[in-house]
Every structure is written in C-alpha cells, then in structure tokens.
C-alpha cells in the first residue's frame, strides 16, 4: 500500500492550466491588435513568444534544470511583452526584450515564482531606454482612409498614404483641461456616441454606470467575486454600445495589445470568473486612476490651476495601457501581494503612480513604471498585511 500524506484529494488545478488560461484570455486583445495593426502585429507577437520560450529553455538547460517551458509561463511573458510594443518594431527589439524579461527578470531570480518584478514589464522598461525611438514614439504611423470604425493599420509598407497620428495619451500629455471632444474631433477615432447625445441622457447613463458599479461591488462582496464577472459583462455591453466608441473598441494608435479596453475586459473577466485573478486588484487600480484623473489639479498654459476635469476620467481609464496593466500585468500572481487587503493597497499604490506620472511627469504612459514600482513595494505590503492567526488575541489580552 502506498502511504501519502493528507489531504488525499486535490482540486485538480495546476500551474500550466493557469498559465495557458491566461494566454487564452489574452486572445481577444490579440485579435483586435491583428485587426487594427495588420499582420505585423502577429509577426512581432510570434517573435516575442518564441524568443521568450527559447531564452527560458536555454537558461534552464545551462543551469541543468528541468526545462519547464511547457508550463506556459514563458508564453504568457512573451505575449505580454509583445502587447506593450508597437507593431512597427524591428525583429531585434523583441529579442532583446525577451532576453531581459526572461533572463534578467525571471531566471536570474531563480525562475518561476521567485522573481520580484513582472518580467514582461522589466523587459519593456529596458527597451524604453535601449530603443526609445522604436518603442515610445508619441506619434504612430497609420494608414488613413480606411472604412468602418476608422480602422487603422500600421504603415509597415511605408505607404505614401501614410499619415501620422498621435496616441490619445500623447495628445493629453501636459495639457490640462483638454476636453474629451478635442481628442476626438477630426481624428480617426470616430465620434464617441455619448457626446452626441443630449447632455441629460449622457448624465443619466453616467449615473447608471456609477450605481451599477456600487451595486456590483456590494453583490460581489456577498457572492465572493463570481458576480463581479457578471456585473462586468454589463459594463462590456455598455462600453460596446455607447459612450466611448472607438477608444474602448481599440481602433486607435498604440501598442499591439493595449488599445482595446473592451477586448481586455473580456479576457480579464474570464480570469475573474475562473478565480485566476482577484477582482479587487484591477478594480482598485482602475478606480484610483479614474478618481485621480478627475481631481488632480493641473496648471494651464495661462498659469491657472484647473482642478476638476471629468472629461479626463474616461480617457485616462480607457485609452492607453491601463486595462492591459489592470487585468494582466498588475495581477501577475508572482509579483502581487498574497492577501486581498494587500492587493487593494497594491492597486491603489500603482494607481497613484500612474496618475502622478501621466499628469505631472514627462511621459505620457505610466502603467509600466507604476507596476514595477508597486512590485518593488510588494514585500513590504505583504509584511504589513499579513493575516492575524484565527483566535490569536492581542498580546495585552493574552498576558492578562
């Protein structure tokens, strides 16, 4: 008879299952990336995944370890690294990024589970300095004159029709009081439907969203998160039909996987539903950015301080890399805190960093650095949010 230690049952979940599910959840965003940026998005993504997997396999071979690339974690890193690169980068950019992400960001710490920083973001941060012109242009070449939602494609062929367009975040950079409409007017983003509606209806819709969010949070707490996913699907529908048009659908310039808040939310909700991520973490992150975007005062060119800017909320939350960060980067299990409480603190910290970098910093995006900074604070957050053992009385009572 075989002797094994209890428990004699397992729930059957495995690390590979988790990683491959995450990879699958990234698919909607990838599909939008392909649609918007063309075949080159697929090319860059494939390169990035191959380089990440190869780097992991080679290092594990060299270290004499079991090669664990089939667990899917390197594939996820590869996908995420590609998703924060524009589709126009040269082939060696994902190569260098993969080596830094897997080699330095993950294997140097001891491999899966031992790293402090999100490997993909560490790779991206390195590329920021190594190839600044390739990875962080404020303007992206796009092909004009496409149909539908103002479909964009990368100017990979150097087409004569090409025009360059700024990303929404770059448009906002350093400019206080830019109303939503000015980002949209005359741009290929298409008209956001809510602003075409009479003001009162727009406000009613806004109120419905807010009330829905409050009810959603309450219901989620009561049902341990499963319903959060269901409520989120409501948000998906709302995004789809009304207020944000092309921005939430992702028909805007940007990196491969970051443009479509809608697709990212779809994948993210799947992860919430399967309990692979804790909904509190993305919620804390997104809400913090949204609130700070509304309230942080900025100085106008005339030297005047403008405090309240509702128009910024949706842009900051939906445009740029925030959704990708909120559902797939900051929620990385290895580099986020263990407890719910810690994860909320972590999300808020990262959210504050995003808002500070975007609004006061000299850089239009803040997601990457905000998460890396929060990663660095993670051990400290874990330390201060360590749960109190059930029944352990405060020392005073115990002594008495």
């Amino acid at each position, binding site marked *: *008879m*075989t*002797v*094994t*230690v*209890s*428990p*004699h*049952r*397992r*729930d059957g*979940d*495995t*690390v590979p*299952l*988790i990683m491959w599910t995450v990879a699958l959840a990234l698919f909607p965003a990838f599909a939008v990336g392909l649609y918007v940026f063309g075949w080159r998005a697929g090319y860059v993504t494939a390169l990035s995944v191959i380089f990440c997997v190869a780097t992991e396999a080679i290092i594990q071979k060299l270290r004499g370890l079991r090669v*664990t690339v089939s*667990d899917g974690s390197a594939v996820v890193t590869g996908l995420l690294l590609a998703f924060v690169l524009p589709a126009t980068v040269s082939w060696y950019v994902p190569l260098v990024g993969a080596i830094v992400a897997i080699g330095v960001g993950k294997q140097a710490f*001891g*491999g*899966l*589970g*031992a790293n402090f920083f999100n490997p993909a973001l560490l790779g991206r941060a390195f590329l920021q300095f190594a190839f600044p012109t390739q990875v962080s242009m404020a303007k992206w070449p796009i092909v004009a004159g496409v149909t539908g939602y103002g479909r964009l494609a990368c100017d990979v062929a150097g087409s004569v029709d090409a025009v360059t367009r700024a990303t929404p975040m770059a448009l906002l950079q350093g400019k206080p009081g830019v109303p939503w409409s000015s980002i949209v007017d005359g741009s290929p983003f298409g008209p956001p439907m809510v602003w075409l509606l009479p003001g009162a209806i727009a406000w009613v819709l806004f109120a419905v969203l807010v009330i829905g969010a409050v009810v959603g949070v309450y219901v989620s707490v009561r049902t341990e998160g499963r319903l959060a996913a269901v409520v989120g699907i409501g948000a998906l529908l709302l995004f789809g039909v009304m207020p944000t048009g092309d921005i939430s659908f992702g028909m805007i310039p940007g990196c491969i996987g970051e443009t479509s808040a809608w697709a990212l939310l779809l994948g993210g909700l799947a992860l919430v539903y399967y309990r692979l991520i*804790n909904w509190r973490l993305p919620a804390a992150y997104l809400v913090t950015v949204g609130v700070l975007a509304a309230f942080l005062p900025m100085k106008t060119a005339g030297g005047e301080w403008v405090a309240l800017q509702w128009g910024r909320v949706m842009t900051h939350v939906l445009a740029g890399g925030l959704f990708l960060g909120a559902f797939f980067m900051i929620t990385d*299990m*290895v*580099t*986020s*805190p*263990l*407890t*719910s409480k810690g994860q909320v603190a972590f999300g808020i910290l990262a959210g504050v960093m995003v808002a500070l970098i975007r609004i006061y910093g000299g850089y239009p995006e803040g997601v990457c650095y905000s998460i890396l900074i929060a990663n660095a604070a993670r051990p400290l957050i874990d330390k201060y949010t*360590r*749960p*109190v*053992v*059930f*029944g*352990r*009385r405060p020392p005073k009572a*115990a002594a008495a």
Partner: protein
Amino acid sequence: MATHVRKFHGGVHPVDPEKARTRSLAIEDIPAPERVVLALQQHIGAPAKAVVKKGDAVKRGQPVAEAGGFVSVPIHSPVSGKVVEVGTCRHVLGMDVPAVVVENDGEYTNADGVGEAVPGADELTPEEIKNRIRDAGLCGMGGAGFPTHVKLSPPPDKPVDALILNGAECEPALSADHRVMLESAEGVLKGVAYLRRVLERDGKLPATYIGIEDNKPDAIEAMKHARLNVDVECEIVPLHVRYPQGAEKQLIYALLGREVPPQSQRGLPMDVGVVVQNVGTAFAVHEAIDLGTPLIGRVLTIAGDAVGKPANLRVAVGTPVPGLLESRDVAPDAARVIFGGPMMGIAQYTSDLPVTKTTSGILVERGPIEQRFDPCIRCGRCVEVCPMQLVPTRLSVLAEARMYDEMAEWGVIDCIECGCCSYTCPANRPIVHQVKLGKWLLAQAQKKARAQQEKEKQGKGGAA
C-alpha cells in the same frame, strides 16, 4: 432561527460524489469477528492498562483495561470469550501499541449491568453521569479521541455556558454521523440531555446547539422531529457546506462567533465557555446510561474509488479491517488504504489494523497521487482558504529551505492540518506534510533544549 450563522474564514468546497453514494446507505450491523484486537491506545492521553491476562474469561462489556490516568479511558470487550493474547497491534499513527486479543465464543454473555438501563437515570447527579461516561470508556468519536469526561470537567475558572453537538461531518465521502442522526435521532438527543446535565452550573443548563451541514436536510428534519419526543432544549442549526465546517474552532465561530485561541496559546473550546461533542459521542452517552452499554462498537463508512460496494457499518471495536473489506468488492488494483476521511485521514501501509473508537471511515483508493511539485507561484489561494488565517505558502517555502525556527514564527504550531491549502495548491505543494514535519522537528528541538537545560541544572547542583 439560523439566519445569523456566520461563515468561518476560508475553507474549500471539495467535489464529493462519494458522499452522494454513501449518504443513502442504511447502517448495516456486522457481527463481531472470531477475534477482536483491542488496542489499549484508542484515545488521546495515557494508554489504558490491561487488567486481564492470557487465558482469562471475559464477558461482553467487561473492561479489559483500566484508564491509565485522568486523561485516559478504559477499554471494554465487545464479545464474551477468552483472552488469547496480551501483545501489541498497529496504531493508525504507525507505532505499535499494547493490545488485548479476545477470542469470541459467540455467546455474547453480558457482564453485570450491561444491557440494562442505569437505575434511577433521571436522578443521577452530574458527577455520577460523568463517572458513568468515564467508566463506559467514552472518547470523542469524530477523530481525535479526546476523553469525553475530561472535556466535561472544565476547571472552575473556565465556566462553560454552551454545548455544541458536532453533526457537520464536513469530511468528503463519510456519512457515518449522518446515518446515526438519521436512524438514531432520539438516542442522540437523549445523550445530549445527559451531557447538558453534566454541564449544569448554578442551576443553569448550557445553551445547546446541534450544528449540521445543510447538505443533510434529512438529518436536520430527523433531529427536529425527534425533539418532539425527547424533551431537550436545543437549537438545531443548519450550517454552510464548507470544509472544515466540523473543525472545532471553526464550528464554534460559525455558531457563536467566539474565537478559540490557537494551539500556540494552548487554546481549548472551554477557554471561550464551550464544550463540543460529536453527535456519535452523544449517542454513545445514551447507550452508556440508558442501555448500560460501554463504548464497544461504532458506525463507520467504507468508501473510496476502489470500493465496489461502499457501506455504513456498525462494527465492534477491535474488528480487524481486512475482514470488513472482504465483502466490499475492493478492486485488485487498490493502492491506498486511508483511515479517516479524504482530507485528514491517515494513509496506512497495510489494512491490517483493528477498528478503534475513533475510526470514522476507511477509504480504499486506486493509484498513487502525483507527488512532484512545482515552485510556489504565490497565487495566494492557500492564504485565502486557510481557516486559521495562516500563510501556508510561507510555511511551505520555509520548510523547503529547512528554516524550521522561522516556521514557528509564522504560526506552524497553530495549523490544524485540515489540508485546505494542499487541496487547492495548483503547484501541488505538500504543504500539510511540510507543516507536520516542521512541527515534529520543532518539538524534537524543544525536547533537546529542555534536556540540555536539565543537564546544566543538575551539573550546577552537583558542583554546589
């Protein structure tokens, strides 16, 4: 009535097709075998001391061993016959313990007073009831086997105002308690009435709750129905189906909102004024007083994926397990025998053990389970499910690094080894194993340190 029931922290909800199979199986009475092997250590505490020798004739219900101290219970023979051996047998924890082997003469001649109600049961004083319970060899039948009379003897500085009957039976696959409640509800309630009387203090009976997981609506109904016939003031509370709902500390919290201090503070339910008894124990109290029968038999579940015919059986204490499995259609490729439930049961290298007072179930399973494990990916599920609110991943990683002293700092002693962490771990980490190892090594180190101190003290004394 029961809408105020709290949820304890964490826990898991194992998929449990086996319970669905075993819950509907009525208890079968199995005749005692030709030989019964009575281990003298079936409870927590000092082993019982044999009072018979080879060749002695014994009657049914006659003690073959007396309590070896206050925290100990006597052991009785479930059959009449002859003592053929005073030797040893295997214990579920792996060691050998003293045992008395009795050959069954098939007559079942009762010893004096066995099978008859204790005269004047209604007028017994609390002390008399307690003595009766002690002499009947009662210990907790849920698993640990803590002597019942000790639990019923709270020191004067720890007043007990609540009695909880544990009918949660949260372990998957097992249905023994369920069937007892269903088939012997009145007996359970009669036992509860005696328990209440023992705990009477200043003329006040303890508030009494019977906690039953709400996946057993028939048992809840049966108990409520029985209450119409037996005059016991108690609340029958449906509990959330969530493992480990039946763990003492979690059960008390769910019912009363009181937090028992953890093991590192030597916390006991009586510290928060509560006594918890298993429903099976309450039934045994009824048998001991109303029928004069000491604890010589119990109900257990036989299940597991290698068992063709699972069953709930009432068997004599001391029945060797291989005989019980014979008629249960066990698959030839069975690879594991587990005493207890799937979550906390203890795997044995052989099925050749006798049934004891604490054997609530026997599982026979196929195939070994995967032992290889991955690095922790810090998913935090173990932290989420830990009912003691520990950080199991930390304990696991520290154990891997052999940092056992740090494990103490992270509360390894407080772990109740319920197994939720290992159950849910996607990296298949053997967290419970590591915790058990850590506890054991810490205890060894402590012992060593204490011995060292003694030696130094003696050395000093000698020099002076």
